[in-house]
């Protein structure tokens, strides 16, 4: 397999697509290639093509989670989401851009079962074990989005700048359907360049895990109060990062038999998060 190292975003975009895949920290893509879940003719190392670093409210997509978790200028919700993600080794390599684009951890998908998300015609998890799966948006695919970081960025009302457009983070994602398994709207030859992250008045990230560290979220709840308005972002509850407008939205959850336990956890964490960012 070929490795290309373009030095600008334009050059990178020119190389991407047609089996040429972007490589940032590699913490996600290398395992996917190794396990045969992703095929690539060439890897395009984008680390010189994508900005890295924090400038006021602008975060380069190449910034690592390790850099974010210690920066006092970064809102608490994002710092915490980074700090509680993965392991120190992974955070030292993993970029925020790559984090937003990580694939599902659904074990059936990771073992290459021919499910909807692999272009097949059923969801193996729903019929089988789905202990770690979704309580929202699970009509077709029931996977649970693993990104703590995306939940935090949703709550913050983040805008993305890519090589092709500017968009609110929520528009980066789409629920997979039976005829289109994509979970993002990013084109093959489109790169995320920067994130514009408003500074909130208060924010918090709460994460339920099945051990104290190095665990994907069972439920992650991010809350941020920006200009007096509180926004919520949830990880681990739907195939994409999920927004709630209020705690009452939880009444509309559609848990599976094996994921019903996530609902009381989400309720408790949402209530706590709302208390934590409440005024006064």
């Amino acid at each position, binding site marked *: 397999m070929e490795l290309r190292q373009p030095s600008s975003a334009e050059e990178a975009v020119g190389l991407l697509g047609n089996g040429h895949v972007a490589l940032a920290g590699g913490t996600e893509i290398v395992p996917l290639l190794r396990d045969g879940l992703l095929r690539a003719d060439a890897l395009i190392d984008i680390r010189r093509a994508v900005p890295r670093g924090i400038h006021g409210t602008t975060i380069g997509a190449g910034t690592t989670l390790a850099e974010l978790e210690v920066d006092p200028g970064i809102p608490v919700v994002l710092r915490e989401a980074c700090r509680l993600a993965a392991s120190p080794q992974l955070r030292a390599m993993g970029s925020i851009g790559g984090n937003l684009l990580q694939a599902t951890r659904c*074990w*059936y998908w990771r073992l290459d079962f021919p499910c909807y998300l692999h272009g097949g015609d059923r969801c193996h998890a729903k019929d089988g074990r789905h202990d770690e799966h979704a309580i929202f948006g699970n009509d077709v695919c029931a996977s649970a989005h693993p990104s703590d970081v995306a939940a935090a960025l949703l709550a913050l009302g983040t805008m993305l700048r890519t090589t092709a457009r500017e968009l609110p983070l929520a528009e980066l994602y789409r629920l997979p359907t039976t005829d289109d398994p994509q979970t993002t709207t990013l084109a093959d030859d489109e790169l995320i360049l920067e994130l514009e992250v408003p500074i909130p008045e208060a924010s918090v990230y709460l994460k339920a895990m099945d051990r104290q*560290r190095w665990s994907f979220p069972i439920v992650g709840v991010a809350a941020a109060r920006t200009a007096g308005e509180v926004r919520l972002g949830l990880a681990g509850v739907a195939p994409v990062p999920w927004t709630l407008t209020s705690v009452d939205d939880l009444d509309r959850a559609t848990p599976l038999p094996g994921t019903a336990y996530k609902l009381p*956890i989400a309720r408790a964490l949402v209530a706590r998060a709302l208390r934590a960012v409440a005024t006064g």
Partner: protein
Amino acid sequence: MADAPQRARGEAQYTADVLLPGMLHAALLRSPHAYARVKKIDVRRALEAPGVHAAVGPEDVEALTDEPGFFGAPVAAIAANTVEQARAALELIDVEWEPLEPLLDPDEAVRRGQLTDEPRRNERGDFERALADADVVVEGEYRTQVVLHNPLETHQSVCRWEGDTLEIYTSTQYIWGIRSRVAKQLGVEPDNVRVVCNYMGGGFGAKNDPGEYTYVAAELARRTGRPVKCALTRREENLAAGNRNATIQRLTVGARSDGTITALGGEFVNAVGWDGWIAPTDGPMQTLYHCENVRTVTYGAKINTAPMKAFRAPGYVEGTFGLECLLDELAARLDVDPLELRRKNYAHSSNERPYSSKNLMECYRRAEPHWERRHELRTRSDSTWKYGAGLASQIWYGGGGPPSYAWTRVGSDGRITVITAMQDIGTGTRTAMAQIAAEELGVPLDRVRVELGDSARGPFASISAGSSTTPSMGPAVRAAAADAKRQIIEIAAQRHHLEERVLDISDGNVVSADGNLSSPLEEIVGLLENAQILGKGARGPNPTGMQVLTFGVQVAEVAVDVETGEVRVLRVAAIHDVGRVINPLGASSQVEGGIIQGIGHTLSEQRLLDPATGTVLTQSLDAYRLPTIADVPEIVCELIDKPDEHLTNLGSKGLGEPPIVPIAAAIANAIRDATGADIHSLPITREEMLRALEAAKQKQRGAPAAV
């Protein structure tokens, strides 16, 4: 640690480090079905792949199968120049599978009579009658899950034929067992099998046997005339390298209102898997307490899952969880203190044979201050976080036994080498053996070197399983050191015209009782020039008619978030009675390791299967959740350290397994103390914790509890 520098400098050679000239690498084709027949297998395309030297299938190696009974069963293997080439060639093996319907439910297997063995029944007294007469009866169904050993070093061997001698470098807990098993299987003389294991990266019971990787490497080495390494990947380790089997335990206790236990009954279903043996899940119920009427039956369910293997106190870990939770539910029903309940039912003399030593009462006494802490602990509870403490007792084997041998060699420089073909599985064995020899010979520890790990360079040594390394090998080493010492004193007596009985060796000097002689050891043995003093020692028998067992109690403190089901273990006090303690640092790290591994078993680890196909879903370590250092509580380790007077010249029992035995029940009982919720199933995931809390709420409201 005698070998700390080698380990720290990376010089310690593990099997994973073995690189022989011309060595090939093997990869295994494993069944993608939990149950299937191989109708046709054709390796011709694979043999033509780049770098490939040989391939073997079910007809070539008995450990490979054409009727795989579990997902990941080994079917064929390839040897190639690199492991990548071998793995790539696996894809080119053409197999026609006939998938069969897998049976995965252990209860269903018992109903169908699909068992690995005859059910094991144990009965004394009249259980039914005692139950009818009991003032109070408590019943419960407990479940434990499949957990995996996951040693740091995966299962692996390197095999090389030198003429008709087979050299096996292998990661093993039993050098001599590998030697005899492989010799028998291949039909060669045991002396023509040399087994080497210098350093070893953990086994926990899963590395007692040769395993398919050894047989495959041996056969591929024979066919290619080259050394062949067969090392399991981490994923294979999570599929088919052994496991602690799941259990279903239906338990009953009957007691008088004063807390005297009068009846104990248990039906245990061990989900053994496609192969394996029935671990003693009934053991704790049979042996932990004094009770005249006990009836147990244990079934070994043969199902289409990977075979179980011994795993750190097999059976007792699972059985202690059930029994000790049941006992606390009894204590709650009777409103008696759980520690008092255990004292009240203390087994002073064994139900069959006397104990060689038993200091469990002393363990309970030493537990008191830890147990007292619960009053203060509970006051920390608020509406969200509830605090509590729980305890559980431990009983297990650990006496070791003969035969085991060791030699000592004292050179004219006064340095001592202990030689025995045992293995150090990472428990600090080299250090402990050096300590025993140094103390017996009266020399500083740094004068002693331990040579082990090679069946061609030392006498027979015991298995490192069943907590037997120190109690089996220690006495042999001590006897070998005493034999050398006797010879040294004989020489000193002749040289100095003194009687042997007034001479001793102390701090490296041969000394006389009156203090007139103090001569460095090397001066005495230096007289010998090239001659050497050779001592030999054998492990004596265990005391006849006695049971040699280990005992202990653990007190766990937990906090539970009753809204989200989060469980945090805050502190564990572990008090164990294992006879004489050789190395307190090594001992406490065994206790810590056992508790940490047990916390994984209790809270986060489980091997999950797809219920339709039997596919293992948790193949990698991000899906199979071992505890991390952040999950480790404060651990307080106390050892009674009283030599067992009846046991060997050393009075030491083993400690590898005892610490993992009571931890799950201690945590579950602490959760009940904190929240009132009865835990019946491991691991205590958020889901199980929230279920138990909900059931407790329903029970309080008087409604029938949801199960």
